[in-house]
């Protein structure tokens, strides 16, 4: 039994319907809202499995169903659904992980007064993500992309009465919006040059060779191929959404949302969207590989940014004390891995890692959620400890997740996917940097995950909350166990000996034999050694001699206080943004302010126009600055705003007259310019 | 539809009586030089319409008074001329020679223009009614829209009359009249939409053509004989009563209570013009009702086709007008709150639901076989009757039959 591509829309439509149901229910409609959401997600999971079944029948085929959305000028704006193994695998993963997270939320959010709204938002989020996956049009993808952004804003700011949550939501929204600006520009440019936004459309789609040849044939400023330029612009969106350097700053802050949301965002959906986008657009991104004369290949940029992010995330994670922040930075780091893999050309490996990571990261987050839930919302690992005996189920599953993330050999899925990436990076000839960064991150990951587990579960409780922790209910434990099972099993789908997943994704025939298992054995040994070193060091610092109290100094900080402080401050990225972008904005605002004051004596219409212009400038600045510090900008903004406001006299006639005068001026300019 | 009619009929297109009006027209236009014949044709139509409906108006006033009299067990006017037939003439003479009073503070121009505008707009509506098989003065593609556009514009004249009188009671009454007209325009238009939807055209001739034919030669395919059509016709009829200020919706005038509302400051011939416009509007709405729901000029049975089509049209028109008068003789006047509540809480929802019924009827047009046909009818009837009963119950909730303590 399969799901044909015409009916693929059902997968996102079901959660969307659940969201609609949740939206109209009153606050007391807890049971119907949750059951609608879970039922829709379960049905979507079943449908996704059917779709996967269909897609695997002919993995090389891109089944599409296109239709006209509306007519525009001479052509129609087309939308469509796409079913290929990439879509199908992603859908299964998203629906399955999502379903488990939904179930987990039943327990975690049990006491929240806005339980129904929470499930409404979760469903909306899942619907947007699934829509993004099944889209066969960059436009539809973009729409869902923005919906994902909206839903994440709503979810991160779910506890909006907490200022930190509201600020984090705003930050996430605006930071990703910055990347989306590039995405939108790339999208428009692509539409302008290719005349279509469909991915596959019987030879006319933008990912098909005919159009790609046309795109690579043109060059733009700087000698870049057109496809490179568009690819890089589109990649901006992925950078923002997937929390890549330099737009990674929102991701750790997004921990302000409820923990299931963190699990959803970091494991299955939002951050995966960026990786998925690059994987989906891989033919476009890789189109310039054949060209020798270009200054830079799009994929090179992807690989380098991925490498930097992988390393940076891992380094910063070492010094974080919040259990969720550690996981957040590890997500940044792992996403860097995926980008790295995409950049070096191993997109199947990237998706393999994406899938495995989705499961074990969801596991880790839900485990962290279980810890937090049990410890009465205590998140600081310095104040936890000794939970091994109090939360046995959580402990066991969490350790499995940790092992998977750290890449403990052979048994755990993370090992195989990470190995595949390192292998691909090894084979990349352009630069050795990704390989080195990857290897360093392997060791660091093992180290900080050991630290996390040791601090949280070993030793003795260091706060009353930890001392009185009680195991979470079954509705929360069962998802953990299921995810733990997947975190182990999934790895065997893509071992070098039997790379079933990669072959299915690429649509290539499967060549499995046991002798491939230890292919590139040297690299594998090196990475195993690094993992061992990381775990060993971590255990030596944190496990053997657990800290005595919450106030005790970190052993690593004792060794190198400066470095540790810098890492704890996340290498000062936020401060850097505040100092640069924020100050720039303040300066621009001051200039605009001065200009306005100077012009004030002139004609009202002049002020109005300038004020509007100044307003546009200020808004651009605003968007640039908001990902930095809001506070630094606030004062300047307020001053500027006050002076712009002076142009807003409230007199309708003034506005009208300004419009008319502007029109006359425009007309005169056009006439003088010879435009008939 | 069985192909062979039970009774042999003559070809209606060639019958002399059927073609008589056209022959007359051709004869008259033939008297003019060819370059002016189109003008002559149109002028002829205008003259015939004005004369015909003006005399119909005269007869209607008489007939109304006679029918009302009979309903009240009295003969009605019967002195002027044989059986009172010259009564309209006497009335005309009376209004013509009566003093024309214009209040000093009134807006002279608008006060004068109001009745003129009203009558001309009311007359314009006659242009698109198909009076017979080939008898439509102006064949318009958007005739229904034209008709209601002309009808909507009459509201302006009511306002002009009320405002120009510079009498606060006139103005208030005009606003009340406008509130009524606007409220009832909605169900009126909404009740027409299903017809347009099912006929697939806005042209009146097209709508009449859509109702052609008979089942077994005796059951006509008129819209009123379908569930949605019956409901639509009732809605149309009630709204038309209100739109033409007829009893029981004659609040704007309410001679006995409001001294004729916005017409208070009018006398003499101007008043007569208002009166005339009211009758024109009523006649035109009835004509539209005949066209939309009662099959226009179609004969009710196949064997009755030998009677010319225009005769059928006018027979139905007079029948409807008679019902108007009958209702006037029966029902007392509503209060303004009852009036608006009836429109917004009863007629409009019913009209909207009727739209759905008509859509169902259209979608189920392909159902064949007696069982499906029966199901189609039952569903459509349920869609009509259910909301009617429920809304009616809500509307009449808390209203019991009045008990008269001191009456026998």
């Amino acid at each position, binding site marked *: 039994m399969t799901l044909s591509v015409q009916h693929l829309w059902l997968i996102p439509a079901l959660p969307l319907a659940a969201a609609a149901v949740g939206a109209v229910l009153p606050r007391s409609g807890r049971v119907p809202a949750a059951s609608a959401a879970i039922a829709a997600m379960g049905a979507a999971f079943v449908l996704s499995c059917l779709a996967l079944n269909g897609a695997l029948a002919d993995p090389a085929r891109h089944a599409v169903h296109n239709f006209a959305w*509306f*007519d525009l000028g001479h052509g129609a704006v087309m939308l469509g659904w796409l079913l290929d193994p990439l879509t199908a695998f992603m859908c299964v993963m998203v629906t399955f992980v999502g379903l488990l997270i939904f179930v987990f939320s039943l327990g975690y959010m049990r006491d929240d007064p806005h339980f129904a709204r929470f499930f409404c938002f979760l469903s909306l989020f899942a619907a947007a993500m699934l829509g993004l996956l099944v889209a066969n049009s960059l436009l539809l993808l973009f729409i869902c992309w923005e919906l994902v952004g909206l839903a994440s804003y709503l979810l991160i700011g779910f506890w909006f009465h907490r200022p930190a949550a509201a600020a984090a939501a705003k930050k996430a929204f605006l930071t990703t919006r910055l990347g989306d600006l590039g995405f939108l520009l790339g999208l428009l440019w692509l539409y302008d040059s290719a005349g279509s936004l469909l991915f596959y459309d019987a030879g006319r789609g933008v990912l098909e060779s005919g159009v790609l040849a046309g795109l690579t044939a043109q060059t733009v400023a700087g000698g870049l191929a057109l496809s490179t330029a568009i690819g890089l612009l589109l990649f901006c969106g992925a950078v923002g959404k997937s929390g890549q350097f330099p737009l990674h700053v929102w991701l750790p802050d997004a921990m302000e949302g409820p923990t299931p949301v963190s699990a959803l965002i970091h494991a299955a959906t939002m951050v995966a969207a960026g990786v998925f986008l690059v994987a989906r657009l891989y033919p476009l991104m890789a189109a310039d590989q054949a060209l020798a004369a270009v200054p830079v290949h799009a994929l090179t940029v992807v690989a380098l940014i991925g490498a930097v992010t992988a390393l940076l995330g891992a380094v910063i994670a070492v010094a974080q004390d919040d259990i969720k922040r550690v996981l957040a930075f590890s997500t940044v780091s792992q996403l860097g891995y995926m980008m790295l893999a995409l950049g070096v050309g191993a997109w199947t490996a990237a998706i393999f890692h994406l899938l495995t990571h989705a499961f074990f990261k969801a596991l880790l987050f839900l485990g962290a959620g279980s810890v937090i839930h049990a410890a009465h919302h205590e998140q600081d690992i310095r104040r936890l400890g000794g939970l091994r005996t109090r939360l046995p189920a959580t402990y066991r599953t969490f350790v499995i997740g940790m092992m998977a993330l750290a890449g403990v050999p052979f048994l755990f899925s993370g090992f195989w996917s990470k190995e595949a990436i390192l292998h691909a990076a090894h084979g990349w000839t352009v630069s050795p940097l990704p390989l080195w960064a990857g290897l360093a991150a392997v060791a660091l990951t093992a180290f900080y995950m050991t630290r996390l587990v040791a601090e949280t579960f070993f030793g003795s409780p260091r706060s009353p909350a930890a001392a009185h922790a009680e195991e979470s209910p079954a509705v929360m434990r069962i998802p953990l166990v299921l995810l733990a099972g997947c975190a182990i099993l999934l790895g065997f789908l893509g071992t070098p000996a039997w790379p079933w997943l990669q072959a299915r994704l690429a649509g290539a025939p499967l060549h499995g034999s046991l002798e491939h298992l230890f292919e590139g054995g040297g690299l594998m040994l090196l990475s195993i050694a690094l993992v061992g070193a990381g775990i060993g060091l971590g255990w030596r610092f944190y496990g053997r001699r657990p800290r005595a109290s919450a106030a005790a100094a970190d052993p690593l900080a004792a060794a190198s206080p400066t470095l540790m402080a810098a890492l704890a401050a996340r290498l000062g990225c936020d401060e850097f943004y505040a100092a640069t972008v924020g100050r720039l904005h303040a300066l621009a605002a001051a200039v605009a302010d001065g200009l306005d004051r100077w012009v004030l004596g002139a004609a009202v219409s002049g002020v109005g126009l300038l004020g509007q212009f100044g307003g546009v400038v200020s808004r651009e600045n605003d968007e640039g600055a908001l990902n930095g510090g809001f506070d630094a900008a606030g004062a300047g903004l307020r001053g500027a705003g006050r002076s712009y406001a002076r142009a807003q006299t409230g007199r309708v*006639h003034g506005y009208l*007259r300004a419009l*008319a*005068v502007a*029109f*006359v001026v425009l*007309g*005169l300019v*056009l*006439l003088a310019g010879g435009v*008939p | 539809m069985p192909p062979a009619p039970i009774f042999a009929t003559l070809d209606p297109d060639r019958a002399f009586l059927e073609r008589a009006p056209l022959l007359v027209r051709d004869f008259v236009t033939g008297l003019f030089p060819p370059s002016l014949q189109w003008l002559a044709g149109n002028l002829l139509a205008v003259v015939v319409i004005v004369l015909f409906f003006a005399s119909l108006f005269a007869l209607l006033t008489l007939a109304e008074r006679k029918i009302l009299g009979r309903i009240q067990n009295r003969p009605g006017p019967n002195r002027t001329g044989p059986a009172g037939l010259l009564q309209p003439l006497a009335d005309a003479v009376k209004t013509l020679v009566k003093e024309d009073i214009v209040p000093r503070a009134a807006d002279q121009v*608008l006060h004068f223009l109001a009745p003129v505008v009203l009558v001309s707009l009311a007359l314009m509506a006659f242009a698109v009614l198909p009076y017979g098989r080939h008898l439509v003065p102006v064949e*318009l*593609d*958007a005739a229904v*829209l*034209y008709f*209601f*556009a*002309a009808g*909507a*514009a009459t*509201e*302006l004249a009511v*306002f*002009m009359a009320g*405002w120009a009188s510079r009498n606060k009671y006139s*103005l208030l009454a005009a*606003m009340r009249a*406008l509130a009524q007209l*606007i409220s009832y*325009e909605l169900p009126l238009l909404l009740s027409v939409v299903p017809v347009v939807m099912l006929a*697939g*055209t*806005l*042209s009146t001739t097209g709508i009449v053509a859509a109702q052609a034919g008979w089942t077994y030669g005796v059951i006509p395919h008129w819209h009123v004989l379908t569930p949605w059509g019956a409901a639509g016709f009732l809605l149309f009829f009630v709204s038309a009563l209100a739109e033409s200020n007829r009893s029981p919706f004659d609040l704007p005038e309410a001679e006995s209570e409001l001294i004729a509302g916005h017409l208070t400051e009018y006398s003499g011939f101007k008043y007569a013009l208002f009166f005339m416009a009211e009758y024109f509007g009523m006649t035109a709405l009835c004509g539209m009702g005949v066209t939309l729901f009662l099959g226009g000029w179609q004969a009710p049975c196949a064997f009755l086709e030998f009677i010319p089509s225009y005769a059928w049209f006018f027979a139905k028109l007079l029948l409807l007008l008679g019902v108007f008068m009958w209702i006037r003789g029966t029902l007392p006047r509503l209060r303004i709150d009852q009036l608006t509540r009836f429109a917004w809480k009863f007629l409009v929802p019913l009209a909207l639901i009727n739209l759905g019924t008509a859509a169902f009827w259209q979608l189920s047009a392909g159902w064949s076989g007696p069982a499906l046909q029966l199901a189609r009818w039952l569903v459509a009837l349920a869609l009509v009757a259910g909301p009617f009963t429920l809304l009616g119950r809500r509307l009449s909730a808390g209203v019991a039959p009045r008990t008269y303590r001191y009456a026998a």
Partner: protein
Amino acid sequence: MILLLALLILVPAAAAMLRRNLVHSALLLVLSWAGLAAFYLWSGAEFVAFAQVLVYVGAVSMVVLFAVLLTRQNPDRAAPPDAAARLRAGAAVLTAAAVGAVIGHAILATPLPAAAGAPPVLTVRQLGLELMGRHAGSLLVIGALLTVALLGAVVLAAAEPGEKPGGKP
């Protein structure tokens, strides 16, 4: 013919903008709108002409007149135009003249195709297919817009809960 129509459209419009009595202005505008409908009819856009009459002459004018009366615009009590008003009027006429000059110049400078023959024929059926086919989405949006606008208008114009129906004098 077009000059006649222009006269019918422009003269009432101009007069409407000059009158001090708001009701007269509104009624003159109705005349101008009717003239526009005549223009549409002359251009062969029958449906639009009737829609114009139905919407403008039948509905918008009513709303305007109701607004005029509900806001108690008494022409007798209107203040005579003061200096500021005169100045504003002068500026307005100047601005409008400038706009007119620019557009007029642009029009006259543009070579436009010569007269087409008979007015184009667009039956209601074609129009309906066009509306329901190519422009169905826009039609839906317009429908939603109208609904929302009506609801909004009702909310805006409805008396506030504490307010007496008559309001203060």
